[in-house]
């Protein structure tokens, strides 16, 4: 398992790209932040509507913002992979060692997993359908609110632990 991960966690092309372009890391960080903004603007706005903030918005219309959140998350995954798989260009530390020792990175990955499970629960519990045609001014079911609250909490947690990663190196 260890040798497998040690092999797959280093992408030589990314490492080379990061090492040979002095701007690569700052570039990726900036897009990581753009991704965070799109994620909170898209998914966060949807969660807030379900929670009852800006209740005057029909849910189906707010849903149109979700692809922006998904795009933001994709930006974060792409640049996040650039950080991890090309990590040695920044510090002389194998990504396998980083992932197995950095407690904050582990918390972050756990929270991303939980956010994914929370999203799955949104569909599995039928809450997605229950709020689908919720008109303006109507409250969402309590379970939908719990899931939306959990989503906001988990994504803010992901941002928090992400900021702590350098402390755990």
């Amino acid at each position, binding site marked *: 398992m260890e040798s497998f991960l040690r092999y797959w966690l280093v992408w030589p092309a990314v490492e080379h790209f990061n090492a040979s372009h002095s*701007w690569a890391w700052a570039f990726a960080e900036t897009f990581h932040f753009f991704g965070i903004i799109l994620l909170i603007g898209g998914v966060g706005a949807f969660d807030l509507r379900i929670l009852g903030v800006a209740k005057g*918005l029909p849910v189906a219309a707010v849903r*149109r913002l979700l692809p922006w959140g998904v795009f933001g998350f994709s930006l974060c995954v792409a640049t996040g992979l650039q950080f991890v798989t090309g990590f040695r260009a920044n510090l002389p530390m194998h990504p396998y060692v980083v992932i197995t020792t950095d407690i904050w990175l582990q918390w972050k990955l756990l929270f991303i997993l939980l956010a994914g499970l929370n999203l799955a629960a949104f569909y599995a519990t039928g809450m997605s359908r229950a709020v689908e045609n919720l008109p303006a001014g109507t409250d969402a079911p309590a379970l939908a609110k719990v899931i939306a609250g959990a989503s906001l909490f988990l994504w*803010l947690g992901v941002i928090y632990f992400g*900021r702590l990663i350098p402390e755990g190196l």
Partner: protein
Amino acid sequence: MWQFLESIENSGFSTFVRETPSVLAYPTVLALHTFGMAFLVGLSGVIAVRVLGVAPALPLPPLARFFPLIMAGFWVNAATGVILTALAAQSMLSNPDFYIKLGAIGAALVCLGQLRHHAFGKAGNGATGAVPSKGRVWAGAMLTFWGIAVLAGRLTAYESDVRRQAAVAVVIAVLVLLAVRMLALRVGGAFNNRATFSARTASGPGIPTANH
């Protein structure tokens, strides 16, 4: 002046926040700065893209309810921003990039105020959600200034030649992404037009369809 900045940087408070091993000090201030950015830029961005024509089904007036959160994001960032500046007062205040960031934030706030006026004030037509074209200009300008502020903020940590190159790379990448989006919308629009056209002709002109 430098002595003054040095004394801020070496004050008991700054030293504590910078050097205590607790993650609740420096990293948490940094994380709060990121939360504030996400709410301030993310939610004001939702209003801006709506004004620019994205998700036209979204009624504009209820979006005004996001303003307390947007302003909370701003004040959290003003407070954490002052702390973060105090920790590295000399290097920050001698960094031209830092002033670009502050200028961009100021400009974005002016745009936000104007956007609010045009989209929700008497100037806008709240009931129909129609926004005068001036509102669209302020929305576009605000997004541009937020982008500059985030970019400049991220780059304060780097050397000046890295900053220049990274800034150019980010601007090029954003322009490419916008061009791809425009192209995709155009291709998608043409496809949709054809689909509705063929659906219309398929039902046949003048022949009433059954079960209507």
